[in-house]
């Protein structure tokens, strides 16, 4: 397994947010992390990235126990994060956003621009002058430039126009086709499930169901994913 999360418990101050989450991602696999709002999806991602370290449980990535590592060390070990909310560096250009933290590997500037040609057209523009969709492309491009072994996408298509959403999904399909390991949180199940190799559902900070997308029945959807 590339990523193995076992029974993690995470707190924000005195408040416990995760009560035992298990999930695993194999190399080249796309895992969908699902659940209603506030069930712990983003906290699970923050724990994996060591932004909010888990107090109990284990996270093993690529054979390395991440316990005790700092967030930059976890990222350096090969975890790339596209956080919720299109987080780019507003007062830097598109090019600077992409190259400043780049690490050598298959993904370089030319390859990112081939995935998102708009970024190449706007290379000299400040990130805060891009549209929401372009900023999301930039956030994904920035994460890819670190050549991650595992790319985590947290609500990457949320709030985007349908046409832009399609562009992002086709990029995700291409990444999956190239064998990139992915952990994806997204509410558009009609796009996500056909791509997913396995799904994990969180409910009140616990992983309550893990299985293949085909096994996700309507009852399970109503019980854990319905509004």
């Amino acid at each position, binding site marked *: 397994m590339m990523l193995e999360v076992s029974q993690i418990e995470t707190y924000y101050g005195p408040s416990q947010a995760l009560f035992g989450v298990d999930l695993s991602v194999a190399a080249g696999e796309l895992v969908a992390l699902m659940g209603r709002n506030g069930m712990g999806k983003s906290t699970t991602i923050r724990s994996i990235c060591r*932004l909010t370290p888990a107090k109990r449980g284990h996270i093993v990535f690529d054979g390395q126990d991440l316990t005790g590592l*700092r*967030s930059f060390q976890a*990222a350096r070990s090969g975890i790339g994060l596209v956080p919720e909310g299109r*987080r780019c*560096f*507003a007062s830097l*250009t598109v090019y600077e956003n992409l190259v*400043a*933290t780049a690490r050598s590997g298959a993904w370089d500037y030319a390859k990112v621009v081939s995935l998102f040609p708009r970024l190449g057209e706007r290379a000299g523009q400040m990130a805060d002058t891009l549209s929401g969709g372009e900023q999301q492309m930039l956030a994904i491009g920035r994460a890819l430039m670190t050549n991650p072994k595992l790319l985590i996408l947290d609500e990457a298509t949320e709030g985007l126009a349908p046409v832009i959403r399609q562009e992002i999904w086709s990029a995700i399909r291409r990444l999956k086709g190239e064998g990139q390991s992915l952990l994806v949180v997204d509410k558009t199940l009609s796009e996500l499930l056909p791509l997913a190799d396995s799904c994990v559902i969180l409910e009140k900070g616990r992983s309550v169901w893990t299985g293949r997308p085909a096994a996700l029945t309507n009852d399970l959807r109503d019980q854990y994913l319905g509004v």
Partner: protein
Amino acid sequence: MRKLSRESWINSVLVLLLALAPLCASLLDEPYYVSLASRVVIIAMAAVGLNLALGFGGLISFGHAAFFGLGGYVAGVAAYHAFDGSYFIGGIPGSDQMPVIWLVAVLVAGLAAAFIGVISLRTQGVYFIMITLAFAQMIYYFAISFPTYGGEDGLSIYVRNSLFSLDTSDPLIFFGICFFSLMLSIFFTRRLMGSRFGAALTMARLNEVRLATSGVEPFPIRLTAFVLSAMITSGAGALFADLNGFVSPSMLSWHHSGELMVIVILGGVGRLFGPVAGAVVFVLLETFIGGFTQHWQFFLGLILLSVVLFANGGLIGLLAGRSRHD
């Protein structure tokens, strides 16, 4: 040909005026004004150093006078030993050669900044401000309690230090040396901020958590910026000691740190030529309004207040508009 931005035009005019002013003063046989221009240029260079930490790195250092003073003391102590042929700590000879003095000054300040930075950069906000201030005050009181180098009375440099075969005692030539040093420090800052390191430093200022999730540790980036910033400021300090022929603990005092901050804020935080604009206004106010009243800082305060309230980006921002880093 690439069109120059409005800010580039303003910067060019500023540099041109700064270069021409001492030439005119020299032609009019007014050496005082040549020295005054040298003072502007040296203080601007010290503020360029602070601007790298404060403006580009978001590190609100309230102790940069320590590095300014260390540069000054290196020049003073080296000249003192060169003058009487004695040795520093038993075996190190003095020197009256500016390149040697500058090299030692930036190395000493760099080492001091590395030590101070390793401790202070583990904190943020008001704690960082207070720790940098505390270190500067420690160096200040150390200088006061060191009678060999004048203690509270300071140390005189009897003959201006030399640079190759140039006549450094000529005010215009000395201005040229200072002006070249200022331009070099601005060029260095520009190249640095245009590099990947500069982009990472901006990222660390904007959001260090986001930078860390890209696999880059913000701490060494900030530390490097802090050290480089101190080295530039110490170079200015060495020139300042030569300009005045004197170095005293007042160069290390917190008032001086505050003045450098005021200059950076006045000219434009994070604007490449902001410290130059700030230093021009600061020294002109100090000299001309200070000639009429002791309370010239009152007018400085009014201007600073107006700039902070109404001009986003300092004086350069007022004239050139929003910068890419605002």
